[in-house]
């Protein structure tokens, strides 16, 4: 027999309220409310550190159908602050599944609300912009929850990379890799580490605030700057470190927040988009080759195209990629320095693999710069806590470290 589930409500900073039902952890969660239009990959989205302190609404109505899999987590636990869906599946069915979505969220203490008119929500965010919001299973009175929402910190100006970065240096063990790459962890996804490894990189992951001098002392073949949450303008230590790396002419590749920080290091400015790009169907034109890639996006901030044209701290900068939908900057390339970056997510997860060639291009860049001689680090770091060298999640071979992974919901 059908019993009416406990109520939950979603209240936006501007007073807009959405009624729904609780389907995960009980409690109250606040954050910036954003929507993601991907048809698949809720687990990858939820575990992506770039969604830290965000309440994520999926526009696809059914969520949880194929459960969750230890292999598909992008970080050790659920990163989003709350989850908003039209319909949360009470069961799941997939040969790779190791758990269900509601249980995974509940175990991580993440509040979920279902039966929400998520299309109304997406349309509201589209016109009113991303804003603070709260989901609650206990404060079902609009005004009470609204008070809590308005007391929450805003996204603009927030330095969140500090909150999600690794606390210690660790090495991703990649036997016989020709390149040694230091990866700045501003909220790095496991898929990025997998693809760097596949491109021939032994990766040393370092905390976001690591001084560039320490990194350079290891004589890396390249430096990678990861994705991450928050306002790039607040991550001043990141852009400062990048400027130092650029000065040392070490090849550099950045994704997402890493891209924004590179832009800022070059002298460009960043700004907050009204409601951002979040999904796996975004067309990005490669300005050099003239082709279009369908790509994964997850960004609320962007590099200002016009400011890039004026950025000259390390020579000329080329706008390498733009979003076909709205012309927003999606990539840059330094003409006079061995550095490039993209705003979108070539590692996908979830999303199309169209941009994966960029990892190979990073390897090519290092090779062109005469890098890639030594395969061992001068001083050993800690072992990877992630176990991420399984190249293709779900491929027939078992994950090297799948059992030790503290995957969401296990």
């Amino acid at each position, binding site marked *: 027999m059908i019993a009416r589930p406990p109520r939950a409500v979603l209240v936006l900073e501007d007073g807009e309220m959405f009624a729904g039902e609780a389907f995960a952890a009980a409690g109250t969660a606040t954050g910036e409310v954003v929507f993601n239009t991907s048809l*698949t990959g809720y687990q990858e989205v939820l575990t992506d550190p770039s969604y830290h302190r965000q309440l994520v609404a999926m526009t*696809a109505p059914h969520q949880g159908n194929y459960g969750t*899999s230890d292999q598909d987590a992008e970080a050790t636990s659920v990163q989003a602050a709350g989850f908003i869906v039209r319909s949360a599946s009470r069961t799941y069915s997939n040969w790779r599944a190791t758990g269900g979505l509601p249980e995974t969220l509940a175990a991580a203490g993440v509040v979920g609300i279902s039966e929400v008119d998520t*299309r109304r929500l997406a349309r509201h965010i589209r016109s009113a912009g991303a804003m603070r919001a709260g989901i609650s299973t206990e404060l079902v009175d609009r005004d009470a929850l609204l008070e809590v929402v308005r007391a929450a910190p805003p996204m603009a100006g927030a330095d969140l990379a500090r909150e999600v970065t690794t606390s210690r240096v660790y090495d991703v063990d990649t036997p016989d890799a020709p390149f040694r790459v230091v990866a700045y962890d501003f909220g790095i996804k496991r898929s990025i580490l997998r693809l760097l490894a596949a491109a021939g990189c032994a990766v040393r992951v370092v905390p976001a605030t690591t001084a560039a001098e320490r990194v350079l002392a290891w004589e890396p073949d390249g430096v990678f700057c990861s994705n991450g949450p928050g306002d790039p303008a607040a991550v001043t230590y990141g852009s400062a470190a990048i400027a130092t790396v650029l000065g040392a002419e070490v090849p550099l590749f950045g994704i997402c927040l890493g891209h924004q920080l590179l832009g800022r290091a070059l002298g460009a400015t960043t700004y907050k988009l009204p409601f951002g790009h979040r*999904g796996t169907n975004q067309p990005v034109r490669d300005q050099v080759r003239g082709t279009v890639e369908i790509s994964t996006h997850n960004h609320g901030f962007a590099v200002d195209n016009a400011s890039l044209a004026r950025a000259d701290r390390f020579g000329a900068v080329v706008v390498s990629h733009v979003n*076909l939908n709205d012309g927003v900057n999606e990539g840059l390339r330094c003409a006079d320095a061995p550095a490039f970056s993209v705003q979108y997510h070539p590692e996908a997860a979830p*999303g*199309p*693999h169209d941009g994966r060639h960029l990892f190979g291009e990073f390897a090519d860049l290092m090779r062109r710069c005469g890098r890639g001689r030594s395969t061992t680090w001068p001083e050993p770091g800690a072992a990877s806590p992630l176990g991420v060298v399984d190249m293709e999640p779900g491929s027939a071979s078992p994950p090297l470290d799948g059992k030790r992974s503290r995957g969401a919901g296990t």
Partner: protein
Amino acid sequence: MPARSDIDTVLVLGSGPIVIGQACEFDYSGAQACKALRREGYRVVLVNSNPATIMTDPAFADATYVEPLTVEMVSKVIAREAARGERMALLPTLGGQTGLNVAMDLAAADVLERHGVEQIGAGLESIALAEDRRQFAEVMGEIGLEVARCGEARDLATARTLAEQLGFPVLVRSSFTLGGAGSGVADDWETFERLVTEGLDASPIGQVQIDESLLGWKEYELEVMRDHADNCVVVCTIENLDPMGVHTGDSITVAPAMTLSDVEFQRLRNASFAVLRRIGVTTGGSNVQFAVDPATGRVRVVEMNPRVSRSSALASKATGFPIAKIAALLAVGYRLDEIANDITGETLAAFEPSIDYVVTKIPRFNFEKFPEVDGRLTTRMRSVGEVMAIGRTFTESLGKALRSLEDGSVGLVGAADGRSDAELDAALRTPTATRLQAVDAALARGWPTERVAALTGYDPWFCDQLLQIVELRRALRACETLANVDRWLLRRAKRAGFGDQMIARLFGVDEVDVRRRRRELDIHPVFKTVDTCAAEFAATTPYHYSTYEDTTEVAHSDRPRIMILGSGPNRIGQGIEFDYCCVHAVQALSDAGYETIMVNCNPETVSTDYDTADRLYFEPLTVEDVLAVHDAEVAAGGTDIGVMVQFGGQTPLKLAKALAAEGVRILGTAPEAIDRAEDRGRFGELLTDLAIRQPEGGIAATHDDALAVANRIGFPVLLRPSYVLGGRAMAIVYDVDQLRQWLEVNAAEGAVLVDRFLESAVELDVDAVYDGTEVFIGGITEHIEEAGVHSGDSACVLPPFTLGRAQVSVLADQTAMIADALHTRGLINIQFALRDEVTLVLEANPRASRTTPFVSKATGVPLAKLAARVMAGATLAELRAEGLAPPLDMATAPSLPYTAVKEAVLPFNRFPGVDSRLGPEMRSTGEVMGIDEQFGVAFAKSQAGTGAMVLPEKGTVFVSIANRDKRALIFPVKRLADLGFEILATEGTAATLRRSGVAAQVVAKFSERAGGGTTVVDRIEAGDVDLVFNTPRGGIGPRADGYEIRTAAVRHGIPCITTLSGILAAIQGIEALRGGTVGVRSLQEFHAEARRGLDSERPV
């Protein structure tokens, strides 16, 4: 790169008649492509033999050739068009498998090269690679993809060896056939040998493939597009509810995929692009089908089609991404990032649609028309249509789709079905059209979802969704009365797709009570928008669906609006011809300044293209759903909203009364008048008052009544249940026993009409428009088959070839009288019988008819457009002044200087063993038109257009004639002998022929096979016969000689003509073919000639 400037003319191939496996989705695709190409400034030349299509409307191309899609006729079109000296390209990817096959043949015959025609869209090599299973498997291996293990055979012995290697079950598929004709799964030698034999016959190259069976694997289809810069996008991923083993056209399918993780989906996405690249589809859309093992995730490529398809039409409707239009633009040189997304207006076609709703497609079957057929679903497609529904959840879209089907069910009500557990177990294992109901029954019995999933192969996630429906139903029933149901529960049920009728059924109340209770509890549907982007961008195209959510998106409007209700799923008796009428109505009203609103649930149609009406509602055609649209439009401003129910066949007519009762304004002929025409008794009185004759007959409520009527008027009598379309259950009976037998089977359907059957009368159809004061006779069509063959299955001719001027006047006068007496405003179709100089009225339908598009194509007068305007208040005089109607009509203008013949296309090749004898029950799925100055040529073209009835110019004719027809046929058969045909006949017929000097070779009847001689069936099997004339002498069903002859002919694709008049026409056709060259001319040229007659002075 923008559009290519080195091409002037694009030749587009249509797909020909509607057949199972190839329906009006290609009208939608082709019409879209023609529009897009003309907008780019190309001269568009179209070849399509199907007059019921919108694409053959002369406004859609610069030159429209309604000619058979044969290499011979298309070559003539190419030669004629090439003579203009323009640079021409052939686009074959929009006309289904027919288009591709014709393109292959044209290339093989060097026609393209000879005339310098470039093939665009898909190259020959790509088509061949995708079609040839062995080569396909080989190249898939090269790119690291697996296909099911397979082999091919050109004879039974080789096939057997392959089956031994693969092990049962195996899949048998006929090469180069559409919709899986000649295909099936075999798990024993008997089935295997039958399938191989049929498959070899069905294949134009005499080849079958034997595949390892992937029964039980999940099936997915990806709709992919690629441009010349190698940009690739997946438009839509479709998941089949039915696992592998059921043809995707016969499966319930869902979009987007519901049970694929991102990791799995990306693997399929990458594979689909790799397939396109390897097959060499340089531009355009393709669909790639995959099988996925639910236990291990192993993937096999099932097949790919390098063209638009049924699924691409579905995907276009499901996402708002117009695949055919984009494919056409890519073929002429555009890239995806150079084409605008119509829906958002601001973004481009280079993206992948994201959808925030669920789409369910359910096939529509017509097995009741072929009761002798096994209803098990296989890899051979047999559905005749489909519905699509959009909801915010799977259960909602499923519920809406089920009530869109119009099959009498109101949704999953868990009816107690009295089946034993063992029977239910078997029903779950066997794929049929009603397996979903069996799943519902099993879950209602408390069978665990795991068990149901294991038996059906449905994914457990879907089984759980279905269980949620069962649980909600249980919760509702537990309330005992509707008044006890609280707001939360009722809203929950509505959100899960429960229709008002379904809820009413649960409580044993009326639908109106549920509606009232729902309004009391403030539960109303809202309308959301299909926008390609899940609300990320504003949509400018109002393409809506209903759901139960917080807010609605219907835009305000102050303009006068007219709603046109569509015709729902295609089915035998109601198909594309009504969609043509709906689309014409929309166009005419839109041109006249009205805002048009289309409501329909058929994804294959032009009417459900967001580009057709100003506002599109993809909704079931039920009172509940149509009222919801009406309410939403009223709420959107203005009150002047009229509804037209006369264009969509019976579907909207059935709703008229209930809609009117709710205060909806029905335009045109009043529902009451329609009712009066349909009600035999009342219509009879009307005719009596007008002193117009009708066949004697009566209405019988009981068996005894029926017997009494029959005895009064005399046998043979024509029997039919009242209120039928397509002649469902109609029969001619010759004696009391046959009458009793029929009543036993059909009495449950209510009142029965008993009419005197007019043997050897000529049947005529008049299509007219009446505005209240004057009538416009749009066309008078004469049937070739005599009365008794359903008008939809009969070949017919316009202008009528045996009628004199005086008879035409009588028909016109009587039409005007009846139209006036019925208070008609708009279209009226009247069927007359002409016997011994007496005209009798068989029936009148004050609405669009099946012949409306044929008449318009033949004459050039857009009847449905005139009717729509008249229904909206214009007079014919006003329409003449506007130039929409010509000064004269078909009764007053000089006769047309050419002849158009419409021929029915029958699906017997899909239903082996079904008797192909024509009768009062309609069984055709589509139609073709032949048009020429000479009747014989026009008839021959119509036969060639069917693909199955192609008249031979020489060879052997087998003649077996009923005694009553012998006298009439001696001289025609003699004519064939004189033309050099070998005549083969049974003993009796041969003797008659010999006495008249016709040398006929005698062959044994099938029933004489015990005698050891060669029978006619053996000769047909051996391929010795090119044409069969067989007028039945009564024997129906297996073991009768006529039956064996007809089914053997169908099996071997030999034309088999079963009526006297059909034979006479065929002989004229053969003579015409032998008489010299058959020419081609465009519809535009024919219409210009017709118009000269229609524009001449009105006679005083």
